């Protein structure tokens, strides 16, 4: 689209790393070939993904405008950039930032690109990447060249590849870390980028590094490959040795898995070859056909960690020696970041005199947004971004500020913020003033108002509910009173995903929400499933469980009610997670029950936050809200929800067998509810329910999710196949998650069928 696109190649010749320049030239050629019809659209689609170029909502050329489905007549007509993806439809560009580390010039580059190719906003993701939205595919080679000239790549930012290698943003300055993991995160990123052994995965592969076990910053438990810094006394030499606790097979997604310990100590020089061996085993044995079971977590679940370890170690033995294993580690040896300014202390007199009446705000900001470094006299400063968004002007200002106060030490975080490192304490008032002047001095980093959200229905094709809309609304309501809240509430985390796929990391929040749809009075209504009791600390130490689905517009009341109850009812020192566990599912459901039902005649529930369009209008009949008619299917789905709830209660009571059985039965009940539409005389025989569900809904693809396909139906088939096997705590927990997703999918299927009837 940009008239200047063709000029950047010459302009930046010699200024880009050669391998990146070559890569982008190839990509540009592939674009040309695709335009000429000489490159298959499926192949081209994966090519795009491996360059970090992703589709956006409505890129199939259709959009519901609130009254009808509108055809978007793009100028390039039928030309596609992937199956059912129109060439001209704007897309998302993801940009990898290994370990989140940036310098000032890179921030300025990001500002330029946001302005010239996007809508003026750069978005920080929950994996320390950047994303630009509404980017035209024809602009991407120029955009990539400008990034390459700043030594940034988009390669393998999406697709079935090794994604951005994330790391604790406090690495190197943290009080509690074993050592600085940054250089090793960069070495691994460099080693695996484009590695031949990483080109044949069935799904993505996400590595993460943490400097310690106890904090959340690295989130290693929810990653495919998690590495926690460790030290030991070398058994042979007796000298202190650095290495990693290595975990594999974690992941959020629809059903979250905790990573399993592979090795309690992997020496530094073994990091790269062992990662390579893991990649080989994943590529060789991982699922390829069914992408819903293609993450490494499923391979490890199927093989068992012992067998997986055995395969990897055997592979490690036969790996051809690669000198880069040592070179990259040696080259990455800590080049310690240095401060720009002498260390200092913060005088209380300075606070009052220099801040022109904003000293109270400054005190709040100091409390929540600064953190002492290991190095005396220095702190880190968190720049809290609302919804992870930052403008081009703010990026330039931030670049100026990090040059002024540090040696350009700034990192993105998985909480969608920035951390400025090596700030002298004596500079804090001046730094605060400068941040505040450009709207980057918001207090509340890491607190209840610092809400994480994926893009949701704003731009994501998979979004079901408006996660950003809800996040913005919660933030707006809570920001002003956040510092009057009880301290225990201030420290809670809210995380929101627009669908079950967990990009907003709802499983590891105190209060998590993910988008689902439900039918109320014949209307499709955006909802969020409430997920409580997840643990953010201990590298995302445990996952929450779904409690109940509530209309989107009632979620602020859910937050208010739960936090009030926590303040009133918690015991001394009791965490929210423990409080939720003590309260129990039954009590929680009772607490929130009335919020699942809309007040009669309240039409606001039928649109989502920040979007006045009526939600999936095609589902709506002619009747008024008050004229509620509940179909037998809805009764059946309600019964399934109740059975799942009973399963959760049994799980809470450590009645694992009963929990597993009930979860399975809830799936059968939901399936039967749908089958009844086709066969009102369906029996209770599980085999018959499964057979008829398969015939009427799976083989016909009526049950298929538009994007996940038959994934949720397969949960049912798997559960049925394993119905006579004993349930373990782990398998029952997974099954409850799967049952919830199956029931959600049954609701969606029922909504879609309603569309067909009324359209």
């Amino acid at each position, binding site marked *: *689209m*940009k*008239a*200047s696109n063709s*000029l*950047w190649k*010459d*302009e*930046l010749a010699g200024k880009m790393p050669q391998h990146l320049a070559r890569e982008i030239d190839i990509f540009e050629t592939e674009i040309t070939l695709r335009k000429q019809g000489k490159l298959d659209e499926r192949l081209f689609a994966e090519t795009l993904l491996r360059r970090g170029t992703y589709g956006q*909502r*409505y890129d199939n050329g259709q*959009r519901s*405008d*609130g*009254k009808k489905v*509108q055809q*978007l*007549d*793009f*100028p390039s007509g039928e030309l596609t950039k992937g199956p059912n993806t129109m060439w*001209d439809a*704007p897309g998302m560009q993801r940009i990898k930032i290994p370990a989140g580390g940036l310098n000032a010039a890179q921030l*300025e580059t990001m*500002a*330029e690109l946001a*302005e*010239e190719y996007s*809508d*003026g*906003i750069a978005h920080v993701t929950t994996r320390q990447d950047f994303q630009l*939205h*509404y980017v*035209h595919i024809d602009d991407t080679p120029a955009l990539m060249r400008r990034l390459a000239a700043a030594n940034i790549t988009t390669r393998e930012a999406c697709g079935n590849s090794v994604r951005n290698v994330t790391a604790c943003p406090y690495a190197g300055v943290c009080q509690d870390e074993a050592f600085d993991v940054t250089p090793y995160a960069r070495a691994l990123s460099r080693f695996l980028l484009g590695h031949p052994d990483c080109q044949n995965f069935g799904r993505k592969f996400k590595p993460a590094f943490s400097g310690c076990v106890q904090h959340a910053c690295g989130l290693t438990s929810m990653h495919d490959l998690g590495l926690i810094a460790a030290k030991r006394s070398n058994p042979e030499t007796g000298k202190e040795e650095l290495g990693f606790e290595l975990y594999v097979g974690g992941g959020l997604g629809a059903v979250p898995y905790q990573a399993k310990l592979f090795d309690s100590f992997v020496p530094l020089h073994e990091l790269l070859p062992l990662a390579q061996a893991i990649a080989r085993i994943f590529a060789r044995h991982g699922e390829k056909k069914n992408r819903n079971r293609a993450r490494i977590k499923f391979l490890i679940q199927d093989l068992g960690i012992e067998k997986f370890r055995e395969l990897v170690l055997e592979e490690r033995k036969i790996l051809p020696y690669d000198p880069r294993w040592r070179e990259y580690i040696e080259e990455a040896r800590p080049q310690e970041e240095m401060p720009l300014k002498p260390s200092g202390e913060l005088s209380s007199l300075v606070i009052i005199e220099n801040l022109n009446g904003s000293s109270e705000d400054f005190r709040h900001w100091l409390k929540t947004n600064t953190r002492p470094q290991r190095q005396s006299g220095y702190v880190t400063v968190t720049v809290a971004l*609302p*919804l992870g*968004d*930052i*403008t081009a*002007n*703010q990026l*330039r200002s931030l670049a100026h500020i990090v040059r002024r106060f540090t040696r350009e030490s700034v990192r993105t975080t998985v909480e969608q913020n920035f951390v400025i490192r090596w700030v002298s304490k004596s500079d804090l008032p001046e730094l605060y003033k400068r941040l505040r002047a*450009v*709207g*980057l001095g918001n207090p509340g980093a890491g607190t209840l108002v610092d809400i994480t959200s994926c893009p949701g229905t*704003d*731009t994501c094709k998979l979004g079901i509910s408006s996660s*950003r*809309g809800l996040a*913005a609304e919660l*933030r*707006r309501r809570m920001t002003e009173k956040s510092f009057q809240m009880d301290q225990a509430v201030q420290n809670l985390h809210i995380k929101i995903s627009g669908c079950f796929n967990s990009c907003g990391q709802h499983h590891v929040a105190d209060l998590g929400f993910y988008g689902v749809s439900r039918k109320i009075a014949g209307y499709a209504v955006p909802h969020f499933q409430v997920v409580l009791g997840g643990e953010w600390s201990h590298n995302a130490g445990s996952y929450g469980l779904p409690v109940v689905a509530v209309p989107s517009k009632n979620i602020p009341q859910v937050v208010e009610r739960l936090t009030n109850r926590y303040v009133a009812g918690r015991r001394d020192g009791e965490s929210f997670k423990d409080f939720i566990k003590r309260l129990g599912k039954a009590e929680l459901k009772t607490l929130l029950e009335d919020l699942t039902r809309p007040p009669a005649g309240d039409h606001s529930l039928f649109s989502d936050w*920040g*979007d*006045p*369009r009526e939600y999936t209008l095609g589902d709506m009949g002619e009747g008024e809200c008050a004229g509620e008619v509940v179909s037998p299917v809805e009764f059946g789905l309600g019964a399934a929800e109740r059975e799942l709830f009973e399963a959760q209660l049994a799980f809470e009571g450590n009645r694992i067998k009963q929990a597993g059985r009930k979860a399975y039965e809830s799936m059968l009940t939901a399936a039967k509810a749908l089958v009844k539409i086709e066969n009102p005389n369906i029996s209770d025989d599980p085999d018959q329910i499964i057979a008829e569900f398969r015939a009427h809904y799976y083989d016909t693809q009526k049950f298929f999710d538009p994007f996940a396909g038959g994934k949720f139906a397969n949960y049912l088939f798997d559960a049925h196949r394993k119905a006579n096997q004993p349930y373990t705590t782990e398998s029952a927990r997974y099954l409850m998650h799967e049952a919830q997703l199956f029931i959600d999918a049954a609701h969606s299927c029922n909504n879609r069928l309603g569309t067909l009837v009324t359209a």
Partner: protein
Amino acid sequence: MKGISTQEQHSVKFQHVNVKLLLNTPEAVHLDAVIPVFHGWIQEQVFDELLLDVADYRHVHEGPGIVLIGHEADYSLDKTDGRLGIRYNRKAPLEGNNQDRLIQATRAVLNACIRMEQDSRLNGQIAFNGQEIEIFINDRMLAPNLERTREAVAPDLDTLLRKLFGSTTYSLEFTTDPRKLLEARIRASRAFSSSELIQNLAPEGLEL
């Protein structure tokens, strides 16, 4: 900044013009009221350009505000630099010369402004302040924010502004931060209505 070797060959032929009209009483404008208006424009596809989506950035400090995303161009209620205005961002290249492209973008933003001024859902909240316009060139390759470029584009801007304001005098000031887009801030010495400006721009009965 980029080098200027390639730019020198293309230094005065620019594309991707942005024009922003500053609003009266910006403190009275509620951006949330604009969201349904933009959705309505998509429903009715009110312009020749293909309109696609609405992006809500109310939560961002001095950001793009509410953006109506289009294929050829975006329209926004933009708060950049704390100056609220209606902004037109031409994304697709246009044929013609610099003057044609300046006129196209100015006409587009004035059309959008008139629509908003007349929209009953906005209760008169949105009105051009009559005097202040900002013009940006959203392409650093074609128009880097350098003294040389500013001198080169000044005559084109002058021609446009004489069309718009007639004999009324105006001031024009460029921002000079080389990291930022090339930007001119213009202030007429008297107030104009948006209808008056669009008439001035197309006095020969051209389609408005």
